[in-house]
């Protein structure tokens, strides 16, 4: 559809690195001021990274989830908030790619995402006791004729103000059970956002995940044709855990790189002596490799199951994806903590090349983004009947 600009002639990792360079430059300011990483997002758009996972017929590049996860790793090393914004956008794209097939409205919309490099936000969390339980909604879409209306008390919508469109979960209608949900994308101009809460947080400050009363009116065909239950089970949960884990790995990797260069600088100063932090670097590298292995094996499992509803619906698949989220979110904190011990006060201070405060604070969000206790609770239910597969080749 679009004539490929010269930028898309470059490889995706190359383009990701160029955007990451910009993200890294503003990462500390974004963190300090708790503001949206607009420079980084402009750079991602200039590198045409927003629509890469959309199929070529609609103007995208048909990139795989693994390729997009790799972009998240690159961005995560530069700026956790920028990487999180990018990852969350791609989670929505993954759902739309597979669960809006055949919808004229969505084909046109995905074409626009590529052409105009639109940014899509998400509103699953809801006030009134729903919290992070994304498989339940209180609000309901109201369809009258060809028009759909929706009002949602959304507790957290990352980059809500900066989004060009927002994907919102709700009940199918006013009489539906809380878990009988649909998902609808509304584009800017079709909705208003009345801010209810600020986002002054420990970390991930640039995601600007404020709360809003979301009020929208659109066309009925914007309600995704497939039930949200199916989208969540087969795409959204797995893709979220994988892309989040990829960027968390990126954050931990950058902390590790700082620890490693701290030790290297010490080794240079005292040739012949192994600096005290060297052992901890080895330990951190070991943990980092576990994180990487976790993410890589998860991506492999996802790519193998993709397009096969039976495989995606299997309990063993859900258990595996949950484990990736738990393992990654916990281990990165240990990695960064090792790096803090390596760098000492230089890591603790905010103004040195070895500063680790932002990494540590950003990484702390990982266990809360869909609470690990909630995820573990869900896994423990499945493990009442599911037996993990011991095979290394299966």
């Amino acid at each position: 559809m679009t004539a490929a600009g010269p930028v898309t002639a470059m490889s995706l990792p190359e383009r990701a690195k160029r955007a990451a360079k910009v993200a890294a430059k503003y990462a500390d300011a974004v963190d300090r001021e708790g503001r949206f990483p607009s420079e980084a997002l402009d750079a991602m758009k200039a590198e045409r990274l927003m629509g890469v996972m959309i199929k070529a017929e609609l103007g995208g590049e048909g990139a795989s989830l693994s390729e997009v996860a790799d972009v998240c790793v690159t961005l995560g090393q530069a700026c956790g908030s920028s990487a999180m914004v990018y990852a969350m956008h791609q989670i929505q794209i993954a759902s739309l790619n597979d669960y809006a097939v055949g919808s004229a409205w969505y084909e046109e919309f995905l074409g626009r995402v590529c052409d105009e490099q639109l940014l899509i936000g998400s509103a699953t969390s809801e006030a009134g006791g729903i919290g992070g339980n994304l498989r339940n909604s209180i609000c309901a879409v109201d369809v009258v004729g060809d028009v759909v209306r929706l009002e949602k008390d959304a507790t957290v919508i990352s980059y809500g103000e900066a989004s060009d469109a927002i994907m919102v979960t709700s009940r199918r209608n006013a009489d539906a059970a809380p878990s009988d949900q649909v998902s609808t994308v509304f584009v800017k101009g079709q909705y208003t956002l009345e801010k209810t809460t600020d986002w002054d947080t420990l970390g991930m400050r640039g995601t600007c995940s404020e709360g809003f009363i979301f009020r929208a009116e659109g066309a009925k065909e914007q309600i995704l044709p497939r039930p949200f239950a199916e989208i969540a089970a087969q795409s959204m949960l797995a893709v979220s855990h994988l892309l989040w884990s990829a960027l968390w790995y990126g954050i931990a990797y950058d902390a590790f790189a700082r620890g490693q260069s701290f030790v290297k600088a010490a080794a240079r100063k005292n040739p012949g002596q192994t600096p005290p932090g060297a052992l901890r670097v080895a330990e951190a590298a070991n943990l980092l490799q576990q994180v990487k292995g976790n993410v890589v094996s998860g991506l492999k499992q996802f790519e193998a199951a993709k397009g096969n509803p039976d495989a995606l619906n299997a309990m063993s698949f859900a258990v595996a994806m949950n484990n990736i989220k738990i393992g990654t979110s916990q281990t990165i904190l240990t990695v960064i903590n090792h790096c803090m011990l390596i760098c000492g006060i230089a890591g603790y201070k905010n103004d040195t090349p070895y500063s680790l405060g932002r990494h540590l604070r950003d990484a702390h969000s990982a266990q809360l983004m869909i609470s690990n206790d909630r995820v573990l609770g869900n896994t423990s239910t499945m493990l009442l009947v599911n037996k993990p597969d011991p095979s290394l080749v299966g």
Partner: protein
Amino acid sequence: MHDVVRQLLAKHGSLPVSVDEIANNADLYDAGLSSFASVQLMLALEEHFDVEFPEHLLNRKSFSSIDAIAAAVSEIADDQAA
């Protein structure tokens, strides 16, 4: 078979509606069956029929309707009796 499934669904399904209102082929997830409740139901079925659900039936589809559950249980009963 359907009657037993209905009985156990009523007891363990934690559904917001009465089981009598649900057709055999109706989508149970749409009717409000949570994944937690589906596992409870699975355990109850295992206990009642003295069977164990094999890995390939541990998915949403096996529990998507009363018909699907009855079919899954029959399949296991046949397999495990053989």
